[in-house]
C-alpha cells in the first residue's frame, strides 16, 4: 500500500526530531571534545556549594552608612557580578555595614578581583611620580607597610607632619619626610597584598598604578567617584566631529562633581602641560587606574580621557569609572567556601521527587489513556532528553547554572508538558465521538489541539519571560527552566507526539479500536463502527440533552430528511443504537 500523506509527513517530522537531537548531542560532544565542557550542567551555589564573601563597609570613626548607600552598593556589586557572567549570584545586606556575595562554584581570580575591588573611586592630584623600582624586597617584604598613611610610616622617626600647612591639594608641602621615605621604599608588589591602600580622603596617598609600572604620591581626594553619573567608551572625535580612530572614555559628572572638577582642572591646567602637577590620578581601591594630564579647564562636567587606549582598555576603564563609583569603600571581611554536602542531598531528594512524580504521571496516563499513555511516556522521555542537552549547552554557553529552584522547575514541567498531550488526546476523542474515523480524527483533532496548545503555552512562555526579565535571584533560574521546557514541550508535541499518533492511526491494532488503545470508538460513544462500517442515518429527537447534541451532528441531508418526515425537535424518536 502506498504511503498516505499523513504518514509521509509523520516520518518527515520524526526525521527532523532526530536531526535536532543529534545536533544537540553533537554540539555538546564537540564542546566536550574541544572546549572545556562536560556532559552535565553546571550547578548553582545551593547544589554545588560555593563561595560566600562578606564585604564590610570601610568607615572612619564616627561615620555611618545609610541603608540607602548600602542598597546602592548592593546594586553596583550585583551589576559587576552579572557583568562577569556569573549567574544566580545572590547579593544581600547583612547587618548595617555588610554585603554578602554568594557565588556558585569557585569563582576565578578575575571575578573575585572585580568584586573585591569594589571600593571607592576618587580623583586625586598627582604630586610626584616615577617608574616603579623592580627591586624585589623578597618574601619578608611584608615588613614594608601596606598601609601607607603618614601616621603609620615605615620610619616613624621621620617628621610626618607637614612643615608648612598645604594651601591646596597640589601643594608639595603634603610631602613630609616620612611620606617621601615611604615613597622611596614603596614596592608596587605590596599592592596585591591584603588590605589595599585606603588613605583617608583628606590625607595624601602613596600608591602605584594597576600595572605596577609607576608609583605616585597623590594629594588628598578632590572629587569623589560617587559624583560620576555615567561613563562610556567611544571613538574620539576631533573638533570637526570627525572620528580620529582613537578610543577614549567619556565621563559625565553630576552637579557637585562638575563644580569640583572645574576647580581641579582650573588649578591643574595652570601648572602647564609637562609638569607633574598637571596630572590627576583616578584611584580605584587605592590603585591608580589612570593618570591623565589636563589639557583644558573643563567646566561642563563632561571630560574626555584620550590616550593610546585599545577599544578593550577604554571599555574597561569606562566600566571601572561607572561601576566603581561606590558611595563607600568595602573590604572583604570573610570569604568562605560552602560545602556541597547539603546541596547534593537536596539535589538527590529533588531527583527522587522528580522520579516519583514521573511514575505517578505514567500510572495516571495509563489509567486514563491506556496505550496512549505509552505515547505520553515516550514523549516525556524525548522531552527529557532534549531538555537535558539544552540545559547542558546553556550551562556552558550562557553561564546557566542549575539551582534547586531550577530542579523544581524541571519537575513541575513534567506535569505541564503532559498537559499538552492530554489536550491533544481529548481532542482526538472528541473527533472520534463526532463520528470520524481514527486517521481523520487524529488530523482534525491535531488542528484544533495545536491552536489551543500554542495559545496556552504562549501564555506560559509569556509569564516565564516576564519573570526572567523582571525578577531577581533564583526566581530567574526557575523562570528560565520553565520557559525553556515550555518551548521544548511545543517542539515535542509537534515533532514527536503528533507524528507518532499519525503512524499509530494507520496501525491495524489501533484502528481496530481495541479497548486497550484508549481510542475505542464504542467506549467513546462514536457512531462509526470502525473504518469499513457506516452509520445508518438516524432521526434523533431532543428527548434528552444527548438528542440535541446528536441533532447538531446530523448532516444537512439528514436534517432535511427529518424535516420531510415531519419530525421536529421534540419528536420522541430515539435514533441511538441501544
Amino acid at each position, binding site marked *: 500500500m502506498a504511503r498516505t500523506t499523513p504518514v509521509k509527513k509523520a516520518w518527515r517530522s520524526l526525521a527532523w526530531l532526530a536531526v535536532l537531537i543529534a545536533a544537540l548531542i553533537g554540539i555538546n560532544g564537540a564542546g566536550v571534545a574541544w572546549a572545556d565542557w562536560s556532559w552535565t550542567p553546571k550547578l548553582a551555589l*545551593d547544589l554545588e556549594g560555593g563561595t560566600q564573601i562578606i564585604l564590610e563597609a570601610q568607615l572612619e570613626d564616627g561615620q555611618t552608612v545609610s541603608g540607602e548607600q548600602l542598597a546602592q552598593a548592593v546594586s553596583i556589586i550585583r551589576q559587576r557580578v552579572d557583568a562577569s557572567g556569573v549567574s544566580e549570584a545572590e547579593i*544581600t*545586606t*547583612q*547587618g548595617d555595614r555588610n554585603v554578602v556575595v554568594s557565588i556558585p562554584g569557585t569563582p576565578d581570580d578575575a571575578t573575585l578581583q572585580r568584586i573585591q575591588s569594589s571600593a571607592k573611586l576618587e580623583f586625586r592630584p598627582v604630586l610626584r611620580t616615577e617608574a616603579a623600582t623592580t627591586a624585589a624586597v623578597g618574601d619578608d617584604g611584608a615588613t614594608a607597610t601596606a598601609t601607607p598613611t603618614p601616621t603609620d610610616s615605615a620610619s616613624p622617626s621621620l617628621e610626618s607632619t607637614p612643615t608648612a600647612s598645604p594651601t591646596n591639594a597640589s601643594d608639595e608641602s603634603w610631602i613630609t619626610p616620612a611620606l617621601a621615605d615611604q615613597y622611596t621604599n614603596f614596592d608596587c608588589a605590596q599592592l596585591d597584598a591584603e588590605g589595599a591602600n585606603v588613605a583617608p580622603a583628606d590625607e595624601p596617598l602613596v600608591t602605584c598604578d594597576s600595572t605596577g609600572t609607576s608609583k605616585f604620591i597623590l594629594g588628598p581626594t578632590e572629587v569623589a567617584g560617587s559624583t560620576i553619573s555615567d561613563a562610556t567608551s567611544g571613538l574620539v572625535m576631533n573638533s570637526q566631529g570627525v572620528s580620529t580612530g582613537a578610543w577614549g572614555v567619556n565621563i559625565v559628572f553630576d552637579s557637585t562633581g562638575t563644580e569640583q572638577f572645574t576647580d581641579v582642572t582650573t588649578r591643574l591646567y595652570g601648572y602647564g602641560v609637562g609638569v607633574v602637577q598637571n596630572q590627576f590620578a583616578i584611584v580605584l581601591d587605592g590603585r591608580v587606574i589612570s593618570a591623565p594630564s589636563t589639557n583644558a579647564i573643563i567646566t561642563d562636567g563632561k571630560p574626555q580621557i584620550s590616550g593610546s587606549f585599545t577599544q578593550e582598555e577604554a571599555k574597561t576603564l569606562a566600566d571601572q569609572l561607572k561601576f566603581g563609583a561606590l558611595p563607600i569603600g568595602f573590604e572583604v571581611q570573610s570569604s568562605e567556601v*560552602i*560545602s556541597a*554536602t*547539603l546541596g547534593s542531598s*537536596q539535589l538527590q*531528594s529533588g531527583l527522587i*521527587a*522528580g522520579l516519583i*512524580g514521573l511514575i*505517578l*504521571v505514567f500510572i495516571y496516563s495509563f489509567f486514563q489513556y491506556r496505550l496512549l499513555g505509552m505515547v505520553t511516556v515516550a514523549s516525556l522521555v524525548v522531552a527529557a532528553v532534549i531538555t537535558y542537552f539544552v540545559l547542558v549547552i546553556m550551562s556552558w554557553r550562557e553561564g546557566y547554572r542549575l*539551582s*534547586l529552584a531550577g*530542579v*523544581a522547575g524541571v*519537575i*513541575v514541567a513534567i*506535569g505541564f508538558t*503532559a*498537559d499538552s498531550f*492530554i*489536550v491533544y488526546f*481529548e481532542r482526538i*476523542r*472528541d473527533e472520534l*465521538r463526532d463520528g470520524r474515523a481514527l486517521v481523520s480524527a487524529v488530523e482534525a483533532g491535531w488542528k484544533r489541539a495545536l491552536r*489551543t496548545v500554542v*495559545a*496556552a*503555552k*504562549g*501564555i*506560559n512562555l509569556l509569564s516565564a519571560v*516576564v*519573570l526572567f526579565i*523582571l*525578577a*531577581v535571584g*533564583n*526566581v530567574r533560574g*526557575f523562570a528560565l527552566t*520553565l520557559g525553556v521546557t515550555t518551548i521544548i514541550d511545543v517542539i515535542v508535541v509537534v515533532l514527536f507526539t503528533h507524528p507518532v499518533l499519525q503512524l499509530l492511526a494507520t496501525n491495524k491494532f489501533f484502528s481496530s479500536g481495541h479497548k486497550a488503545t*484508549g481510542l475505542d470508538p464504542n*467506549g467513546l*460513544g462514536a457512531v462509526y463502527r470502525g473504518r469499513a462500517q457506516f452509520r445508518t442515518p438516524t432521526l434523533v429527537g*431532543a428527548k*434528552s*440533552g*444527548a438528542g*440535541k*447534541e*446528536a441533532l*447538531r451532528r446530523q448532516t444537512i441531508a439528514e436534517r432535511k430528511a427529518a424535516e420531510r418526515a415531519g419530525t*421536529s*425537535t421534540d419528536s420522541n424518536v430515539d435514533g441511538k443504537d441501544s
Partner: protein
Amino acid sequence: MGGFAKFGNDLYTGARSFAFVGNRRIWYIIAAVMIIASVVGPAIRGGFVFGIEFRGGSEFQVSEIANLDDDLIANQDLATATVEDVVADASPRVTTVGNDGLRVQTEQLTNDETSAVADALAEAFDVPPTQVTASFIGPSWGADITTSAIRALVVFLVLAAIVMALYFRTWKMSVAAIISLVHDVIITAGVYGILGFEITPSAVIGFLTILGYSLYDTVVVFDKIRENTTEDGDNSTRTFAESVNLAVNQTLVRSINTGVVAALPVGAILFIGAAVLGAGTLRDIALSLFIGILIGTYSTIFVAAPIYSQLRENEPDILKRTKRLLATREKAGTPAVVATSEPAN
C-alpha cells in the same frame, strides 16, 4: 477507560451536564466567601508569616563541630531546644552547612539574647565560643524580591490581558480570565496566611508560577468555549450560556486530567520535601504551586467561564437570540435543559 471515558462521553454529548453557568450565583458566593476568608483569615491570625529573608533576623553559624550527629533531625532538635531554652519564642530554623557546621536562623534578637544564644549553642555542640558566629540579616533582599515580584506581576497581567484579548478577539475573555487569576492568587496567599506557612522567596516563585498555570488552564477551556459559541452561530438551538456551559462540560475531563497530572509531580516534591528535607526551596515552591494548581483548575470552571458568560449575555444580539430561543422552546413545550440561565432582564 471504562467509567471515566463514558462519563466524558456523556459530558461531551450533553447527556450529562453540570450547570456551571446556570448555578453561577452559588459559585460566586463561594468565591466571595473564600476571598473574604483569605483576606480576613490571615488578619485574624496576625498577618502573614515571613521568612528570615523578608523580615530580617538573627543568624548563628556553628562551625567545625567535631561530634556532629549524622542525623539531620537530631541536630535540628538539639539546636532548636538550645535556642528555645534561651529565648522561648525565637522560632529557630536549622540547616546543616557542610559536614560539620550548622546554621540557625531566628527572629531578630537583642544584643544580650544574641550572645546568650551563641554561648548556649557553643556549649550544646561542644565547640569553643569563637566558633559560633552571630550576625543578623537585613530585610533588604526580601524587599528586593518583593519589589521585582510585584513589578513582574503587574507587567505580566497587562501583557497577558492584551495577548488574550488579541487571541480570542474579545476583551471580555481577557477580563474573565484575569478576574479568575486574581481570585487564585488571593486564595493561594490566603491559604498560606490562614495555615501560617512561612512566605519565603521560594514560595514567591511558586506564587508567580501560578500566574502562568492558572491562565494556561483558562486559555484551554476558553478556546473550546470560543469554538462552541462561534460554531453554533445564529441558528443554534442553545442559548449563549448553554453553549458556554456545554464547552465547560466537554472540557471537564480534560480539566480534571490536566489538573491531576500537573499536581502529581508537584505533590511528589511536596511529599519528599516534607518527609525528608524539612523546610527548603523545593518544599516552599511545591506548596504554593500545589495549592495554586488546584485552585487554578477550579476557578477556570467555576469562576472564569460563568463570568465570561455573564459579560456576554447582555450583548443585544445574544440577548435577542436567547429570548427568541426561549420563546420557541416555550411554544414547543420543550423543557429547558442543559443549563438554566436566567435571561438577563
